[in-house]
């Protein structure tokens, strides 16, 4: 049997660009370039490694990348396909505008079920919302184990094992498939797409689904379905320019004087 892996990948505004909110207090996507969330590259990488391991052992595996987002989100799929994923699914619908984390997890869970899966691999957090909750929510919805925030992951004989480095301890975790996994940026550098990979990606199938394909009502998602509202968003005032001194032998002493003046010493 082929191991069916679904990787969830998010299309996000470039963090090095000038990110803004639009008038309806959702993310302004027009003013800044989007890309595949860098933290999801680690998820794609681990999924590809798990699939490659299976194939070397004579078994089969298939890696599907899934995104929920506007038209441009196809770019995120292309990047993942050029890294080596087999096919893509794009969930796009105008009614998705303004969906919150709970709504996003509904759409992802329905699409994952429709696609068919043994293993879901996600990033540790998106680089825009940075909540780090969607994988746990998807696991809750699918009713399967969550094995999240792994810095090391392996899958063997229908069991996923991984290491989770928490605040106070490092834990070794284990669960039976099907399961939802999320991986951190400590899990291993993501590969760069090769020229061959980029060319091959153009021919790989990408399915497009909308809400009706997933049996989701418009009012369950989007701004209307959101269970959170943003009441205001204000750009943080620029910090008032600080004092900058050049070290000419006394820099450490000058800094100590400043710290003392601020009562830190």
């Amino acid at each position, binding site marked *: 049997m082929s191991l069916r892996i679904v990787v969830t990948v998010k299309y996000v505004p470039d*963090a090095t660009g000038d*990110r803004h*909110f639009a008038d309806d*207090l959702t993310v302004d996507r027009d003013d800044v370039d989007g890309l595949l969330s860098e933290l999801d590259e680690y998820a794609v990488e681990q999924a590809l490694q798990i699939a490659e391991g299976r194939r070397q052992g004579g078994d089969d595996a298939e890696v599907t990348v899934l995104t929920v987002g506007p038209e441009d989100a196809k770019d995120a799929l292309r990047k993942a396909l050029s890294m080596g994923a087999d096919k893509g699914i794009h969930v796009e619908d105008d009614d998705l505008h303004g969906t919150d984390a*709970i709504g996003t*997890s509904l759409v992802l869970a329905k699409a994952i079920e429709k696609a068919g899966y043994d293993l879901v691999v996600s990033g540790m957090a998106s*680089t825009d919302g*940075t*909540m*780090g*909750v969607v994988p*746990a*929510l998807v696991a*809750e919805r699918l*009713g*399967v*184990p*969550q*094995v*999240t925030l792994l810095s090391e992951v392996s899958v063997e004989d229908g069991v996923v094992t991984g290491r989770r*480095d*928490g*605040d*106070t301890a*490092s*834990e*070794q*975790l*284990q669960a039976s498939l099907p*399961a939802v996994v999320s991986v951190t940026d400590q899990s291993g550098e993501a590969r760069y797409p090769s020229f061959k990979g980029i060319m091959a990606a153009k021919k790989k199938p990408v399915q497009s689904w909308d809400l009706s394909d997933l049996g989701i009502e418009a009012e369950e998602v989007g701004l209307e379905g959101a*269970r*959170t*509202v*943003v*009441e205001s*968003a*204000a*750009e*943080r005032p620029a*910090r008032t320019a*600080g*004092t*900058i*001194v*050049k*070290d000419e*032998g*006394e*820099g*450490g*002493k*000058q*800094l*100590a004087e*400043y*710290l*003392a003046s*601020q009562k*830190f*010493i």
Partner: protein
Amino acid sequence: MAEVLVYVDHVDGAVRKPTLELLTLARRIGEPVAVALGGGAGDTAAALAEHGAARVLTDDAAEYADYLVVPKVDALQAAVAAVSPAAVLVPSSTEGKEIAARLALRLGSGVITDAVDLEAGGEGPVATQSVFAASYTTKSRVSKGTPVITVKPNSVSVEPAPAAGSVEALSVTFSEQATGTKVISRTARESTGRPELTEAAIVVSGGRGVNGAENFSLIEGLADSLGAAVGASRAAVDAGWYPHSNQVGQTGKSVSPQLYIANGISGAIQHRAGMQTSKTIVAVNKDAEAPIFDLVDYGVVGDLFQVVPQLTEEIKARKG
């Protein structure tokens, strides 16, 4: 007065500071009821009572340590059913956020993560978030069901407020999913004797400019002279100079101390995401053009190998 559930983060009965901060915030919106789970849960009561917990609901089942996240969600769900709170507050740790989100989904409500402030509002508690690497400040609220909100450490200063803190056993029936993910082993992080990074009032960090694991003793020396925690940039962590548990930034810890001192750190957006809300920011960097200088209250353009030892000596001398 409406009750507010506060999830207690503790290690074998020792309550961690972010929970005391939550109790302080909870009192702005109602009467705090604490939920303490796992080994030592009962031992938390005195500290919680001292900080305003009217009641402490405890359950010390082994499941909380033996399985990941879900048993704790089951317990909070049981507590919500027993108390009907106006809101549920959870510390913004990685685990706390997962617990909060799953709870909100079960309650048919919404979740807000990483709040940095909280106030009562006409339509329920209003949370302040600091987003896009702290370049925006937003105010949000949960619009359906019982609000579940996670709050970042160091968002408020702890104010003691003695309350009854009566201990009651919480009765929890574990869901089928509770035992899905086994914790097969756990290695506690060794204590360095320094303050915990996310809780520290002062953080001293080193980056690629520190140029080697052995040189981190300079950073540690400065930290110790100030009673501070030690942080590191991802470049320093990736090079193997300092443990990942000390990384500050988007994929490391997010810190918000009174004072942050960045040494040999350029100030990339992902690093800034984890420290930009620090009250006072100081940097030592030999490159006058480094973006970190855009953030600082005080900056020294210079070689950290000259500046940091001199600073450490001067602090020691002043402290006598």
